[in-house]
Each structure stands twice: as structure tokens, then as C-alpha cells.
């Protein structure tokens, strides 16, 4: 009986490598490096109405206006385009030291205007964190604005 001979099928390595390299270059070129994000955390006591929070002695109120102007207890601090907020930071540090000396908690109420951008809110939170103040609440979030 005669044995049937099949033609031998070889794996073609060269085209496979070509395709692999093409795909590899495609993914390398189209990939976008993702910047790692960091945390800026705050403990929520809940949102409070401004009328209630003003009665608490060691509490300061920071208003962020639409233009980005920071107002601390009716006193305008720093320029609206200044990201570092040096005057606010210095004041907050003094406030924190005074609260620590009185053994009371330093509290900040943030009153954010509707059209102020989130970056400005984070700038203020950043200054609070730098001053070591952790008690931050958002005023007017429940619709109890003045």
C-alpha cells in the first residue's frame, strides 16, 4: 500500500515578527502616559448652614468669589490669579497656632460661589492642608445660603 505524502507546512516566523513589531510600534506610539493622581482628603461633618457655623468660636469663613478672589471673614486676601495664596496661608497658620494654644479645633467654612472653578477650591484646600487644618466644611451646599 502506498503511503500518501502530505506537503510539510512550516511556520513562517519572519512575517509574524513583522506584524508583531508593527503592532508593538502602534501601541507604543498611541499610548499616553497616565499621570498618577494624589489624594486630598477631608472628613465630612456634613454640610452645615452658615448661620449655625458662625456661632462656633474657632471658626473662620473663607469665601471664594466667582473671579477667584479669596475673602477671609470679609477681608480680601491675595490676587485672584495667585495659586499659592501666601497671605491666606500665613493667616491660616497663625489661626491654627492660636487654636492649638487654646486646645480647640480649628475649623474652616468654605463658601464657594456658583461660578468659581474647582481648581480655586483645591487651592484653598491646599492652603488649609499646608497650615495643618483638617476641619473644613462646605457652606451653602444644602441650599441654606444667606
Amino acid at each position, binding site marked *: 500500500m502506498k503511503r500518501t505524502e502530505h506537503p510539510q507546512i512550516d511556520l513562517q516566523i519572519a512575517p509574524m515578527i513583522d506584524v508583531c513589531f508593527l503592532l508593538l510600534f502602534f501601541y507604543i506610539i498611541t499610548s499616553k502616559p497616565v499621570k498618577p493622581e494624589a489624594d486630598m482628603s477631608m472628613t465630612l461633618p*456634613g454640610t452645615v448652614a452658615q448661620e449655625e457655623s458662625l456661632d462656633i468660636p474657632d471658626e473662620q469663613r473663607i469665601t471664594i468669589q466667582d473671579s477667584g478672589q479669596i475673602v477671609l471673614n470679609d477681608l480680601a486676601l491675595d490676587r485672584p490669579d495667585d495659586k499659592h495664596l501666601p497671605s491666606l496661608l500665613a493667616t491660616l497658620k497663625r489661626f491654627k497656632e492660636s487654636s492649638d494654644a487654646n486646645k480647640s479645633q480649628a475649623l474652616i467654612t468654605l463658601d464657594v460661589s456658583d461660578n468659581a*472653578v474647582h481648581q480655586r477650591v483645591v487651592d484653598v484646600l491646599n492652603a488649609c492642608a499646608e497650615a495643618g487644618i483638617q476641619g473644613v466644611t462646605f457652606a451653602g451646599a444644602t441650599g441654606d445660603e444667606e
Partner: protein
Amino acid sequence: MRRVHQDEVGLQIAPMIDVTLLLLFFFMLAGKITKGDKLLDIHVPLAATGKAPVDEGARDVVNIDEKGRLFSGSLPVTKKELTEHLKQRFKDYPPLKLYIRADAATPGSKIKEIMAVAAESGAIEVVFGVIQK
């Protein structure tokens, strides 16, 4: 004169293919994983005091784009739907953190809105996503 025979230096194909395929799979998978974030296109604000996250597991992510639209993960939601979803999550997995990825240009009214939602849902800790300067 006797000719000096040098050892032939051959190109090792097999390890090269291994490495190429590994790189290929890496980029294919990395591209797929980051696709969700790219679709939302949110540029979180910059902050110097941002800390590297310690535990990224126990948190529920809320994305807010520059127009103030809310997304639970990558799913668009209304304020009411988000409140209900978060209430259930905080009930099922306490103590869960709320991770807010808001665009740097998101209006303040939307930030206040999400803070109200967080308070109403029973969130204890809120984390704002930032990029360290």
C-alpha cells in the same frame, strides 16, 4: 598561513520574539485599562499637598466633567440616582470613601452639589483627586 576562524555570532530569534510579544501584550492591556479614563477626559486640579493614595480599594469613584455632569465610575448618572447608589454602597461596604474626580474647571455650584449628595448619602470621608505639583 593559517586562517583564524571566529565563532559566528548568531541573532537569537526566540528570546526576541518572547520580549516583543510581552511588550505587545503589555501595551494592548494597558491601552484597554486606561480607555475608560480617556473617554471622560477629566483634568483634575493641581495641588502641592496631595498625598499618594494608601488604599485605593475602599472607595467609590465619582467623576464630574467641566460642565458639571456626574458619572458614577464611567456611567452618567443624575443627582438622584447617584444619591441612591451611594446610600446603598455606604450601607453595604462601610467605611467607604468617596473619591471625587472633578475637572479643574468644574463650577463651584457642582462641587457644593456633590458635597450635599455625599452628606445626604452618609459619606464620612471625601477625597478629592488631584495631581501633585
